[in-house]
């Protein structure tokens, strides 16, 4: 797989909550510019994996590394791990050990953005304000950590105009420019999902983690979401990590699928390969292996 440059590498990830092992010795990689889907039945530990990658949980065991730039940086992985540092910055790229970083630095420095299974917008703020909060860190710098901004220096005004322009472009892309000044909480469900993706993109990520972006969408909206995700990948060259239940989304747009069941990886590969794996089908349909053929016929697979 020489043409596939790894961007994210999860090794031996284990997460225990007391006696419960939510994720057990999980390893997989996500390649640059690809859409990697993480699927599995309810309670398989998908969201826990997401929370570990994005820094919301500290994993009990394992290493989660993310690379920017040239693939040669991976050679330094063990040295960085030994040194106890969070990250390695080099001329040709950077390496981040995400399990060592707090969640806000995972977004700010390692440039990993995420959305949530139950939408987490700022409902009482306008659509535009939601997109500006996402650009907090560059704007904070431009406002001289508030000092220049309070004094009203023009450099901040220019930075704010640029941020609004960027937000406007995203709103055009997701078709919400007419509702920019409406509260985000008053948007219809599908629009809230799209806005959350746009808000995550406003943080300039290199890896976008989407937790069930198609949940609750009707077939047309879910189709639009597919197009949006493919267009984002094409235009920004970013990698996408996806948790999804909706197989029409997963099979159509993913390049690579990892299947989890009870916290353990049961399959890993291209969509067609995973789809034909009897263990995956059995886990998904919740039946024993020998009953798969009958149930498949019933549900029309």
């Amino acid at each position, binding site marked *: 797989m020489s043409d596939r440059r790894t961007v994210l590498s999860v090794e031996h990830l284990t997460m225990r909550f007391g006696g419960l092992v939510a994720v057990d010795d999980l390893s997989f990689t996500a390649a640059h510019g690809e859409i990697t889907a993480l699927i599995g039945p309810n309670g398989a530990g998908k969201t826990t994996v997401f929370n570990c990658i994005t820094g919301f949980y500290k994993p009990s065991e394992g290493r989660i590394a993310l690379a920017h730039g040239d693939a040669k940086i991976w050679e330094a992985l063990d040295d960085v791990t030994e040194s106890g540092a969070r990250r390695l910055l080099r001329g040709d790229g950077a390496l981040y050990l995400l399990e060592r970083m707090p969640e806000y630095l995972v977004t700010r420095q390692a440039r990993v953005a995420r959305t949530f299974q139950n939408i987490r917008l700022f409902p009482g703020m306008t659509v535009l304000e939601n997109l500006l909060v996402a650009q907090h860190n560059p704007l904070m710098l431009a406002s001289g950590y508030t000092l220049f901004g309070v004094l009203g220096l023009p450099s901040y005004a220019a930075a704010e105009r640029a941020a609004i322009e960027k937000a406007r472009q995203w709103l055009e892309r997701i078709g919400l420019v007419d509702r920019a000044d409406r509260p985000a909480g008053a948007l219809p469900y599908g629009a809230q999902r799209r806005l959350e993706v746009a808000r*995550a993109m406003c943080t300039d990520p290199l890896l976008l983690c989407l937790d069930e972006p198609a949940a609750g969408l009707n077939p047309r909206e879910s189709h639009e979401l597919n197009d949006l995700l493919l267009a984002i990948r094409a235009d920004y060259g970013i990698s996408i990590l996806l948790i999804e239940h909706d197989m029409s989304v997963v099979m159509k747009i993913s390049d690579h699928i990892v299947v989890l069941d009870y916290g353990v990886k049961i399959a890993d590969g291209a969509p067609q390969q995973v789809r034909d794996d009897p263990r995956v089908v059995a886990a998904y349909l919740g039946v024993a292996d020998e009953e798969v053929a009958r149930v498949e016929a019933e549900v029309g697979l």
Partner: protein
Amino acid sequence: MSAAPNTRIDVARALRDAAWTALLAFGLFLPLIGFLTVQNLNNTLILETRFGLLATFVAITALGRLAYELVIAPMRARAALRPAPAKPSRLRLLMAMLGRGFTPFGIGFIVVYPVIVLTINGTGGAVKWIDNFGIQIMIYVMLGWGLNIVVGLAGLLDLGYVAFYAVGAYSYALLAKNFGLTFWMLLPLSGILAAFWGILLGFPVLRLRGDYLAIVTLAFGEIIRLVLINWVPVTNGYAGISGVPRPTFFGIPFNASDEGFAAVFGLEFTPLYRTIFLYYVILALALVTAFVTLRLRRLPVGRAWEALREDEIACRALGINTTNTKLTAFAMGAMFAGFAGSFFAARQGFISPESFTFLESATIVAIVVLGGMGSMVGVAVAAIVVIGGTEIMRDLDFLKQIFGDTFDPTQYRMLFFGLGMVLIMVWRPRGFVETRQPSVALKERMAISADLVKEGRG
């Protein structure tokens, strides 16, 4: 009466409700108002009864309930049945027009307020109106605006806010008395010291949310007060610090001496000059607070505060350092309380722990909550209502005509105050200002309904 079945007035039910209300009021007021303990000539306590007054209270309560059932409830039911008007009513348009002009008009009025009071009351009566009303209300407006950053914007319920007010006041009093520093040097210094204590409080409470945060901040306020009481060598305990140096007019003191303000400007000496000077000082401080807060709201840090109130997890997912964001909110809020505190010490000339009790914190929180939605105009109006209201209720002599000559209205001040608060909260559950103004707009600024805006859970 319109004949829709659910708007029909049920007189029997209204009477029954009124009777129940009367019974409840009787049970509540019997111990509170029906009995009175007085000391007789032999210095022993005897129990007096005031059944006449009790009857008046019960009758007013029952009649109020009856009026609600017979008049107000049917009116509201009918209003709810009527379809919403397609065009805003003329009254609503007028209100909107008034709302737009409110802020400039309000500031203009406050600037000329001392002149108006002087013309109406003359120099004799003006001190009360400028000092008790003007300065007192403005101190609370400033405190309200400061706490508004913490509670209204960042959504962190702080019940110990008066601690920072105390830090500001004692910083000024101690440093001015012991080191002879002037008001204008100590004003920023008190603010910085208070902000420092704000950060100090911020650290331990960063992980707490909602009720837990409220309890710890409450305890912090009490700790500061108890330290002030018990650290006698420095703070002089309960006795407080007297003879705190008063602010001067750029080096010219306000006194009757030959170097005093009146003598230098060739005026007849009166304490009024100092009062007017202090009025404009607190006005300037309040306007600076308003200006800075308005600016902050439009800066990334202000938006991050509001985002924190809306959803802290989402903030963290967007790369916002919520620790720093919370600490800046605590520090900014505390800083304005520090300014207000040092002004308070300079104005009073005497401070003691009595001025910094939990009741003060509760009053400031009440002002912010009554104001609503993190709105600055709302907080200012609430401060006028709460502080001005309690001041006005000091002269309620007309109530003697209702309750009889033996009735002492000042004793019932807090009762009426509480009643007023309950009524306001029933009428406006989210405060005077019920919409949030967005900090930025692409085309048109549209107010956001309170239903969508979170109150913040710390």
